[in-house]
């Protein structure tokens, strides 16, 4: 689980699992929160490269982390989101807070 997370300057990079559902969500949130509490995390980048499925539990993970950093001026980004993940991001309204980085650009 721990190698999902690494820091680049004050960005926490999270390599999201293949499937993000309720069963996965709690451990993912807890792991991310250990970094948010323990390190100087300002922004978070969610990397969906390995992710083939996400339901509303995954939306909860992103919103929950956003709430923890937004009050300190932090932002949340998504990279490598495939069309299914994009659909979840759009339908859920997550796009209002989650900056989707298109391929070939950097966060």
């Amino acid at each position: 689980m721990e190698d999902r997370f690494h820091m680049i300057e004050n960005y926490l990079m999270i390599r999201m699992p293949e499937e993000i559902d309720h069963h996965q969500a709690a451990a993912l949130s807890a792991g991310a929160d250990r970094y948010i509490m323990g390190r100087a995390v300002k922004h978070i980048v969610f990397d969906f490269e390995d992710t083939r499925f996400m339901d509303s539990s995954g939306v909860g993970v992103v919103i929950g982390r956003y709430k923890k950093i937004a009050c300190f001026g932090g932002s949340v980004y998504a990279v490598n989101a495939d069309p299914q993940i994009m659909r979840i991001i759009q339908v859920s309204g997550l796009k209002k807070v989650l900056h989707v980085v298109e391929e070939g650009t950097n966060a």
Partner: protein
Amino acid sequence: MRNEMRLELDALSINEAFARVVVSAFVTPVNPTLEELADVKTAVSEAVTNAVIHGYDGAQGKVVLHGILQDGLLHIEVEDRGKGIEDVEKAMEPLFTTRPELERSGMGFSFMEAFMDRLEVRSEPGEGTLVIMEKQFGSQGQDEE
């Protein structure tokens, strides 16, 4: 072609993924598009998750997945014998959640509604919950190619 299945699962979070795999396999004969498949998996995942979290609240129980596939129409029911829903209309409002401490997004029913063609929820407190959903495959037709 008509095909029907009924599956009883323990109300465990690990079975959320199992239910998705089952429904994916069940609809394979109608050649769903990637998008249709993702829609059905998401909707079933939401319904089973609701049964595990809200219906039984971590206690033991069974979730029944009942599917009928006929002429490209999937009729799927997810049923639990858990605590039921007091106010179904309210529960179906976007962002409503009875369990904010779990960091749920409150979008379970919204997703079921968005990704399926029909959603009906029958529930009484103490009587469990029955979620009925339908989806017609192939309705997006050629423009998916």
